[in-house]
């Protein structure tokens, strides 16, 4: 059965104070994924870079 968004979850999703902290947390988390670098897949050892 499809998961539902409960009233409590919705309150948390739209609470500006809680969301302000989520904003900071998400920004950092996304930066980590993005700044985590990128590289090739064919010869990973020599090709990983974060250009």
């Amino acid at each position, binding site marked *: 059965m*499809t998961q*539902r968004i409960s009233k409590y979850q919705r309150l948390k999703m739209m609470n500006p104070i809680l969301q302000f902290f989520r904003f900071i947390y998400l920004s950092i988390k996304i930066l980590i*994924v*993005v700044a985590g670098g990128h*590289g090739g897949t064919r010869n990973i050892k020599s*090709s990983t870079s974060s250009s």
Partner: protein
Amino acid sequence: MAKIVVLGAGISGHVAASHLRRKLPKEHQVMVVSPNSNYQWIPSNIWVGIGRMKSKQILFPLAPLYKKKHIGFKQAKAVTFHPEGDVTENKPYVLVEGVVGDSKGKQEKVTYDYLINATGPKLNFEATEGLIPGTNSTYSVCTYTHADHAWEGLSALIADMKKGKKAKILIGTGHAKATCQGAAFEYILNVEQELRRHKVRDMAEVTWISNEYQLGDFGMDGMLLSYGDMTMKSHEMVEMIFEDRDIKWILGAGVQKIENGIAHYENLDGEKKSETYDFAMLIPSFSGHGFKAFDKNNKDITDKLFKGFMIVDANYSPKPYEEWSVQDWPETYQNPSYKNIFAPGIAFAPPHSISKPRKSKNGTEIFPAPPRTGMPSGITAKLVADNIIDTIKSGKEQLHHKGSMGNMGAACIASAGFGMTSGSGVSITTYPIVPDYEKYPKTQGRQLGKTFGEIGLAGHWLKLALHYAFIYKAKMKPFWWLIPE
């Protein structure tokens, strides 16, 4: 002195040109050729299409910026490629055609030492009969002019609903092999929220139509993601959102024909069906621009450069789905026949789709083409620029900068409604973009933790912050390069 010509001034072309200019000494020439006089931050077209942003907020003219930054600019479109020159021109060149003023229709040879083809996709509306933005009550949000039209159509419908009209709204993909489901997903959630804001939500039936096999496929074969302290499949997350917003869905649908207010489609069971609507926003299929290429003796060599999109260092050998590998995906975006030509962003030909290919019982292929979103477009453009810079500076070919979509993360902040206190966003990150089933066999090819989803107001703020940050970066304001792609 080297001359680098960049075709296209979208996310990838503009990123490449700006990094080249910043890092290369002035004696080297950087020139951009693009038919549009403006730069547009395409992701914010969603908000133009719901009337919450004006198109002028998401664009700026390129010519003054390029003049100030010593980047050459030609408002023209590339027509043919001549990577060996011709009998009268020794240097490789691109034949371009002016699109405005005195140069309109006039063709000219633009020679280069290095060529970056960043022409993105052709919005191939013609591939679906009757799918013409602004007619047959169908719209698009793929460009700012399309988004302006979409808002005109939607606001007229909202006005009718306020007078008591019941309406059907259909949003999704307008072709059996369309991509960019993410943009349509954002638009449907934004439209739904606007209907509530205008207090007409109960007058409308809102339906998602898509070529995806499951919700949340997004052309990336879906994903297993961390959601709070749960592990969830992306289809479960999107189902939860659609249920919450009372949005219906039709999946595995290849839209084949549009008549005024009717979308005809075939589904994976091979059934031919139709769906009526009062307003539709359907993403067209994306294709290459149909460029031709010629050698020195004017012999057609299009197949050395193009396979729809541009051929790069990918493994294009046809093979069954089970044998697809992450190593098939390109790393340097260099054309194998002409090493001074590169194609980052959407302009390169992907080796295969990311979603599992599926056929209807009639043999019609119905599945999403692989998306190349803004972040990988920017990253691939920057690495292409860096390799060219290193090559010019060292005097010999350098390809140290690599970035396969199989070893690159992407963040997708999908707007789910506009408003500083009432807005919402679905923040999703994926690592890697192309699943690596060998490295992450138990988590559908992706690294959990780096692949996560989150819903809430913070997502809206994040999307808005990115809007301002990326326009700041594109305007090349002080320290713009510190903002990552």
